[in-house]
């Protein structure tokens, strides 16, 4: 079946041979037009846009953590032993994940207008499904021993959560948060293509004006931020977990 799918796809995908033939030429053209890099452009536009991108990613992730926790709890069968509630929570999580962050961004740009607010909300709504799903699964895997001990001692629900479940899921929670932040830094860089703020807006305008030297600077900036984010995540994970 897999082979059939591959063969069918190869036969029907439209490839224009002339375009493929001059690809090396086009790449060479692209590289020569990108050179020399327009670094003078960095301080006045790119830097602010880059910071905005990081804010979008970080605030979006934090908002998603806050919103995903209750949904994750509702999705965990051992905490909320009601199948209909679990299913509704899982439906919320699946629909959040099925919509790409660019589509969420299009929706929020339609609602709140272009800008970083739309981007932050798009990142948050896309991340709820991811964080909530993994957090709910971590809760379901928690050992029942400590929780039984707490309820035997007459601990109320809040104490069972903070002293029974939270210490067990804490490492999973923070590693999910870090993992998602890393993904969100990458994703927030493209949200600007649909007008949702961040460095993507600068990239979009440079592309539309064929200012390839500026495009190269922006791409380099995105690359640097992504690498820095990855290093930060690795270091924090090593220290914390």
């Amino acid at each position: 079946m897999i082979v059939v799918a591959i063969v069918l796809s190869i036969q029907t995908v439209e490839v224009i041979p002339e375009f493929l033939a001059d690809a090396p030429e086009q790449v060479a053209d692209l590289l020569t037009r990108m050179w020399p890099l327009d670094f003078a452009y960095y301080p006045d536009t790119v830097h602010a846009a880059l910071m905005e991108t990081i804010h979008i990613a970080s605030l979006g992730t934090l908002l998603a953590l806050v919103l995903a926790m209750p949904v994750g709890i509702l999705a965990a069968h051992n905490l909320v032993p009601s199948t209909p509630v679990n299913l509704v929570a899982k439906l919320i999580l699946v629909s959040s994940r099925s919509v790409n962050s660019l589509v969420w961004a299009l929706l929020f740009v339609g609602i709140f207008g272009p800008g970083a607010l739309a981007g932050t909300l798009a990142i948050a709504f896309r991340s709820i499904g991811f964080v909530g799903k993994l957090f709910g699964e971590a809760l379901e895997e928690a050992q029942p021993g400590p929780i039984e001990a707490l309820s035997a001692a007459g601990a109320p629900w809040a104490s069972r959560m903070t002293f029974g479940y939270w210490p067990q899921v804490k490492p999973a929670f923070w590693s999910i948060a870090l993992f998602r932040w890393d993904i969100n830094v990458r994703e927030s860089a493209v949200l600007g293509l649909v007008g949702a703020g961040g460095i993507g807006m600068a990239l979009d305008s440079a592309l539309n004006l064929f200012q390839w030297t500026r495009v190269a600077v922006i791409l380099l900036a995105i690359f640097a931020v992504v690498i820095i984010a990855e290093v930060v995540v690795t270091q924090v994970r090593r220290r914390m977990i």
Partner: protein
Amino acid sequence: MNAPTAAVPADPFKGSLWPRVAALALIVYVIYAGAQLEVSWARIETGLENAAKFFSRLFPPNFSRHDLLVKGLLESLQIAVLASTLGIVLALPIGLCAARNLMPAWVTWPARLIIVASRSFHPVIVAILFVKAVGFGALAGTLALTVASIGFIGKLFTEAIEEISLKQVEAVRATGASFSSVLAFGVLPQVFSRFIGFSTYQLDSNLRNSTMVGIVGAGGIGGTLFAAFQRFDYDFVCAILLSIIGLIMLGEVLATGVRAIFIENATLADLFRRGSAMRRVRHSEDD
């Protein structure tokens, strides 16, 4: 008779200093960054008004241009299938070369560089570059997602190989087996099930992204979606979104099925919580 004299802390669950400092820093950051978003009640009010208008125009979905819709979805599906195939085929050797426990340093560094470079850009940005290189259309999208697949599968495959038990590799090597036999009988059986896991996950992820690369002209349903959005054809937008969600859910069900066939005990969650799962496995091995 004597009460224990050792000092008992008043609060046994007292937190230490650093988490508090970190929490404080986080709050300060949220206030600072939140102020840059220019959120105001007036904006939220107009936003809610817009949302009401927007959602009323979104429904009912308009499926009248279904031939365009089906064509776009099929193209997205083809992009996803081709990109995953190409990506898996290319990621296998690259991932193998990047594994530090099997290869010398001069082989691992270039391979690792390729993986990092292909992971660092979002597929949509890579698609922009490929649109310039090979022109508008599905080929650009396929190549862009291939690059993304190499980055993702390559990285996880490398990590999987680095975590294997070297005992079996040594055993195969001790029989005088050639390098390819060592790979085929010592290494691959240990990583095969996880490899299937990443591949199905990547197919799923390519399917999601293949519906988006069209925004920059790289083929698939994304172009149709973006055009409909800009023409305020919101009922058609709704139809496209519903179809995309349907396609993705179908893909997810298929991927889960494939995963269940090949690996009974490893799920996507295990893949993500690989660290803890591996630690548990190692503990049980030590015991």
